[in-house]
């Protein structure tokens, strides 16, 4: 099992580096992205400062100004996401091909033993394409996802490609604005 697990860790390091390299080639090094990123950071800091300066005692005029700033920030964030989209598609295609290749290599193979039984809605992933009812058997995809979750984020942070905390706080995700953003409207 050592060989399989260490090989999967190696695969996920390689794919994370490949993904970041591809994103750097298509996005990070472009002038447009760098400009937009700097713009978003600047707007975030300005907005934070304004919110901190006025605190709770906020009049209608200031509120309108802050809302305008937030609208501008939202637009910049949207533009940034659009710039990133190109590389996301390229990475999506490359990773789908790579994953299906590795899936066929590790098909039906128990790559590791889990020291716990995963909760029922994770068992479909942790026991994917495996025979038997022993839910402590771990499939390739489960270990690969865990490795990627830990390695990719750390590589992004080490290389300085991770979005800043201020930008993260103000960016919208698929499920709508984050709680911190909503509290800003109170």
């Amino acid at each position, binding site marked *: 099992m050592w060989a399989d*697990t260490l090989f999967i860790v190696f695969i996920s390091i390689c794919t994370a580096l490949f993904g970041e390299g591809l994103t750097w080639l298509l996005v990070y090094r472009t002038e447009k992205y760098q400009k937009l990123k700097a713009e978003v950071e600047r707007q975030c800091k300005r907005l934070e400062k304004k919110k901190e300066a006025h605190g709770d005692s906020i009049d209608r005029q200031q509120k309108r100004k802050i809302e305008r700033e937030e609208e501008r920030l939202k637009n910049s964030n949207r533009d940034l996401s659009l710039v990133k989209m190109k590389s996301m598609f390229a990475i999506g295609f490359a990773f789908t091909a790579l994953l299906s290749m590795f899936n066929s290599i590790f098909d039906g193979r128990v790559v590791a033993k889990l*020291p716990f039984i995963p909760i029922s809605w994770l068992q479909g992933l942790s026991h994917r394409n495996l025979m038997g009812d022993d839910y402590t058997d771990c499939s390739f995809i489960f270990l690969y996802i865990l490795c990627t979750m830990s390695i990719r984020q750390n590589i992004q942070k080490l290389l300085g490609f991770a979005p800043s905390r201020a930008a993260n706080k103000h960016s919208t995700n698929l499920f709508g604005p984050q709680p*911190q953003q909503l509290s800003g409207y109170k």
Partner: protein
Amino acid sequence: MSKTKSTSERNGINKEQCLGSVINRALTCNSQWPDKDEFLDVIYWGRQVLGVALGLVWGFIPLKGFIGLFLFCVINAAIVYFYASSFQGIDEEEFGGMWELTKEGFVTSFAGFLVMWIILYSGLHYD
């Protein structure tokens, strides 16, 4: 060319000095953190190291079942809480409350912990 090299060398030295200063402050109690992001970075990387270390320990023992997951969450959160509030004595409200500090880098640390735990557990006890 030589100008570019000397600039990058200078930047490298600055970066090293900055990193050294951050590590020094991280290990000294009640340090000053004018840049909030620096302190959050210390929490983040500390958590990653802690996650891997706990994963190694859990794998060696070996610890099994949800008690392992539960203990990881409790120890991880408790160490960060005591480090921030007692050792560094920071004002948690400056960082958006203790919840913000408690969740900083938690998911990544949890994933790193699981990978280490699973690899060691499988390698040492099932090979």
